[in-house]
């Protein structure tokens, strides 16, 4: 927020003097800040012991996470397979139903019989 105020004193200036402004002028500090912000670090990340340990920890944690996820997926797959097997066994378990037996009976084509008899 800005609030204006009128300076009615003719002897008092509203702006700082040249000396006051020059006090804030410092190109060396500016260059240093610029270097700090833009230059790449002299030491590569993997050569810094602390950063190296941090990188190793990150890699290990990532590996463990993927392992846990893989195991979970395997377990779920196993469960699914077991369920599928169970349901298959139930459907082919011979309930004695005439309709089901009808479905189970292999279908044959009259043309196939003709072909067979020709070869015979």
């Amino acid at each position, binding site marked *: *927020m*800005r*609030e*204006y*105020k*009128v*300076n*009615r004193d003719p002897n008092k200036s*509203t*702006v*700082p003097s*040249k000396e*006051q*402004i020059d*006090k*804030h*002028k*410092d*190109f060396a*500090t*500016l*260059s240093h*800040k*610029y270097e700090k*912000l*833009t230059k790449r670090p002299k030491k590569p990340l993997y050569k810094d012991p602390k950063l190296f340990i941090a990188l190793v920890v990150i890699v290990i944690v990532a590996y463990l996470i993927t392992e846990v996820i893989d195991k979970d997926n395997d377990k779920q797959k196993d469960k699914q397979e077991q369920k599928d097997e169970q349901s298959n066994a139930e459907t082919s378990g011979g309930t004695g139903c005439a309709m089901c037996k009808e479905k189970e009976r292999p279908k044959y084509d009259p043309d196939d019989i003709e072909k067979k008899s020709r070869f015979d």
Partner: protein
Amino acid sequence: MKFDKPNIEINDSEQIAKAKKNRDAFGPLYEKYFERVFLYIFKKLGDEDTTGDVCQLVFLKAMMNIQKYEDRGVPFGAWLFRIASNEVNMYYRKSSKTHVVEIEESGLINMMGEMEVSGDKAHEIELQEKLIKVLNAIKPEHAELIDLRFFQSMSFKEIAEIYDISEANAKMKTYRLLEKIKKDWF
């Protein structure tokens, strides 16, 4: 506050080309524009130390983005003022305290003259105080335009270069704003 002299522009473009290759060549540009940018920011913030910090930040950003600067008729000074304006607005957004900015009475008198308002001495101070209240209440982007024209004494050409608009557009915007202020004022 002039930054449109042709001989200065030639030197600027040479210096900018050098600074794009070698950042140490930014030094002369810094020396040349520091005072103007400092005063520009000071007139918006009103505090010397804060102005110093914001001014350094402006030049740091200019140094980092000098590759992006293309001389398409916009003077380097106007480009710097644009960065400064953004930084000041950002500072205001972050800061919660109110900054008191002292302005010259002459700026207000000039503004009143543009609005064709005048009165006797005693009445004039009262009018000015009322005008200050209106100025404190207007939107920041509108206040900026008034600030540039009347308190930073910039020409319409310079304002147009900062906002990247035509001179006629800058003039129109200012006069429309003055009309609005006049309505709120009375």
